[in-house]
């Protein structure tokens, strides 16, 4: 991933341009993947690819607040859940339109993010991490107790969503390219936000909240807005994951998922937008690879994480700090 993130410190704009180029290269590679997979006669890769792209959307969304707003949300898997259950709930009422499902998932997420964000953002640091974790868990238990949708066992979807009446998502290829299109759209959206007036305020609050107050900004409003946007984008990933698996379950929103999303963002590079997309690819491929090697892949993944933090000098954050991307406390 280092080629994506190891750009020299300097002005924000050129640094950004490099990352956009890296993202474009990634998107082209993603677009070329399905024909390659079918040439290799292994279309199963297309389904795995869809999963990776969906998680890339979630990692991108998390980076918007973690990287640009220094908000370590440990409850982001909840929004994957809202997205996927939006599909399940609407489809149980016979509504299969992707657009409506996205709208429903985004609305649920916005409401949840508004309420939980407003409470969590009154605190900082360790508090914020634990409270977002607890609220994520609250959503988890909410869906476990929804017995109409299978509770613990989850809920199977008889068919995938339709896009404006067309069943383009029925084929794995169609789903893959729609997911890629949404990933690109979300990347453009996040990139525009980061470069905008709002983005500059958000980044300023990350760097020095007191200074921002002293020039007339109330951090809370901007952080909460970013928190809601991030939750909404994450729910888009949830809608796509439900379609990919044709199944939804509370397992989508366990706190392990939230942790994995953070791992993806950090692995790719905090506060780079492009990095977390690569991070999602790397983390999920590592999972697949370790999973194929050993049934105890979690052990190896855990060891990898601990070593990565302990033995890169001053941690991953330290590496990024030297690159001028993030600022640690004190």
């Amino acid at each position, binding site marked *: 991933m280092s080629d994506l993130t190891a750009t020299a410190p300097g002005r*924000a704009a050129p640094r950004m341009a490099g990352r956009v180029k890296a993202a474009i290269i990634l998107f082209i590679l993603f677009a070329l993947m399905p024909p390659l997979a079918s040439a290799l006669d292994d279309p199963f890769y297309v389904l795995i690819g869809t999963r990776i792209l969906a998680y890339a959307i979630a990692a991108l969304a998390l980076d918007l607040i973690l990287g640009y707003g220094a908000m370590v949300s440990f409850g982001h898997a909840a929004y994957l859940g809202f997205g996927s259950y939006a599909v399940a709930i609407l489809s149980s009422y016979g509504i299969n339109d992707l657009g409506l499902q996205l709208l429903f998932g985004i609305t649920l997420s916005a409401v949840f993010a508004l309420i939980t964000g407003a409470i969590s953002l009154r605190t900082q640091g360790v508090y914020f991490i634990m409270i977002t974790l607890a609220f994520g868990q609250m959503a988890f238990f909410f869906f476990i107790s929804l017995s109409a949708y299978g509770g613990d066992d989850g809920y199977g979807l008889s068919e995938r969503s339709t896009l404006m009446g067309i069943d383009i998502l029925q084929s794995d290829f169609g789903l893959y390219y729609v997911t890629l299109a949404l990933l690109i759209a979300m990347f453009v959206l996040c990139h525009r936000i980061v470069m905008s*007036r709002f983005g500059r305020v958000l980044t300023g609050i990350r760097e020095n909240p007191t200074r921002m107050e*002293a020039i*007339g900004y109330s951090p809370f409003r901007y952080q909460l807005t970013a928190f809601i946007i991030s939750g909404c984008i994450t729910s888009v990933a949830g809608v796509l994951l439900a379609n990919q698996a044709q199944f939804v379950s509370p397992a989508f929103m366990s706190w392990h998922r939230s942790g994995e999303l953070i791992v993806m963002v950090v692995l790719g590079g905090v506060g780079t937008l492009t990095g977390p997309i690569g991070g999602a690819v790397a983390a999920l491929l590592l999972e697949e690879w370790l999973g194929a090697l050993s049934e105890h892949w979690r052990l190896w993944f855990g060891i990898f994480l601990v070593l990565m933090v302990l033995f890169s000098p001053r941690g991953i954050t330290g590496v990024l700090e030297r690159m001028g991307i993030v600022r640690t406390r004190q």
Partner: protein
Amino acid sequence: MTGLDVKNLSKSFGALKVTDDVSLRVEPGEVHAIIGPNGAGKTTLISQLSGQLASDAGSVSIGDRDITHLSMPERVKLGLARSFQITSILPGFTALENVALAVQARRGSSFRFFGNVAGEAELNEAAMSALAEAGLDDRAEVLAKSLSHGEHRRLELAIALATDPKVLLLDEPLAGVGGEDAEAFVSRLQTFKGRFTMVLIEHDMDAVFALADRVSVLVYGKLIATGKPEDVRSDPAVRAAYLGEEEVA
């Protein structure tokens, strides 16, 4: 032109009275210096005036507006700006971006999610002129963390100017600046006289006497004297408080 009116302001940390019933009227357009020995509570007072610290009792108004219960951002919007004693900037932003953010806070909405902020001429031009007034326009594109100490002090000033203040609270603007740089800084501040009201905390007595219309002396949280610089200088109570410190002599 707007003045600043402080009535019976108090603040305690535990049993320690850091600000003890301070009343002070700063006239519109005046440069009012607050001096006092270390630990007198000068920075605490500035923090209370700017809204960073809540007061236990008393009131603060600018013009006719009571701002005692307003937050720091709300006070800034009404024209009360502050600079920090210890440089407080956005290290990963360029000097221009630091100042442009301050301009943005008072121009249009910051809830704009599209449009490249770096290309907004409206913000950049205003920011450049604030930088020029602080004498930092030639360093506009440099990351704030790469600037020298003296440049940081000027950036602090530029940011405060960019908020378009009616009343500017300057917390030791000359901290750590010496010699010719200090002189240049003082004459720069002199050019702002009459443009807005200034409350100045400063240890450098040459600067205080060069700039201030009136001086107040703060000792252990209490104002013990207020008056013209010459009068304060010869006030026996002030001399007693400063006993052993040679700056006033």
